[in-house]
């Protein structure tokens, strides 16, 4: 069985470490970065089954990052889930519809429902 690969983008070290540990208990392969632009480079150079994307980040926001992903023909169909303390709907109307993240998960997360959501996304439509 091929191991599914997830790219985790969050500027907080402890959140990155913790979510990575959690995803690894689910047997996913996880790569991490703290910056949206860096994430885009990684996406262009590799294949990821899913991107978990924070919204509030210092250099480039998760919203801007996803806009860039959707505008790039090579990676525009990338599966993305927001992982955020702020509901993306509070960043303006229609973000979800326009940018098409598969879901958004609010931090602090509940491990069980987080696992369920990720498994549902990565287990379906393959």
């Amino acid at each position, binding site marked *: 069985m091929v191991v599914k690969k997830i790219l985790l983008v969050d500027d*907080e070290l*402890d*959140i990155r*470490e*913790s*979510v990575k*540990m*959690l995803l690894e*208990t689910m047997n996913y392969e996880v790569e991490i970065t703290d910056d949206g632009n860096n994430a885009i480079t990684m996406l262009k150079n590799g294949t990821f089954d899913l991107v978990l994307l924070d919204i*509030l980040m210092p250099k480039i926001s998760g919203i801007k990052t996803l806009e860039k992903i959707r505008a790039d023909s090579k990676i525009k169909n990338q599966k993305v889930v927001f992982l955020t*303390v*702020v509901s993306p709907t509070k960043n303006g109307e229609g973000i979800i519809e326009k940018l098409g993240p598969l879901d958004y998960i609010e*931090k*602090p*997360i*509940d*491990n*069980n429902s987080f696992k369920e959501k990720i498994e549902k996304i990565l287990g379906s439509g393959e």
Partner: protein
Amino acid sequence: MKLQKSYLELQELEKLKSKFLTITSHELKTPLTPSKIQTQMLLNGDLGELNEKQKKSFEIILRNINRLDELIGDILEISQLEAEGFKLKIEKVQLKNVIGLVVKNMLPVAEDKKLVLSYEFSQTPLIEIDKKRIMEVVTNLIDNAIKFTTRGKIVVRTQIKGKEILASVSDTGPGIAPEHLGKLFIPFSQLEETFTREHGGSGLGLAICKGIVEQHGGKIWIESALGKGATFYFTLPMSQKSKKLKDVKKKVVISKEIKKLK
């Protein structure tokens, strides 16, 4: 003139306070996130088996992380409410179904305390409300009633009164002394009262309920006496069409306090 100046200053101060609360709440959620993930992993045995004492210890930690999380959530909600008011998502729904669903969800909580929870209604009108928000209000009122009632029953009722719906949640709890009634809907009031602190919660629930109901153009109040139980009432207009958009955005919680100064 002087009064007008202090009115404006107070308005500025309120805005600043809300902004401050919103930002700090977000900042508080960040360190809570890894703490919660790690504690849940420990409890789940993801990082190795725990003995009973360790398990109990992490359960206490997790419970308090969750409490902090809820408290921050409430602070965020109330500060947003004060800053700009909720944006309601109005839809036409069958009132009976909305309230019925909340009652159904809360049944296990009531049964845990061996309390009877029931819903009485005579008509089944269609009503224009933000379903999620009104469910939040009713959940909160029932939850409060359960929290403060040790035996007896909790009855939810809805009826049509003219162009409005009158809803109520009655309990057979200890009731509330007259001197405390006025403070109930003021944010954080519970924190000042040692007599209710043991019941947990942030003391923001009722302030949030008040905000949501007033945003719909309704009113919320309580009738109670010591030893006589308590009944929370709220009204909701059946239709939102008659309301002007301006009304919807007004600052609901602090507006009355500020108006007094004018």
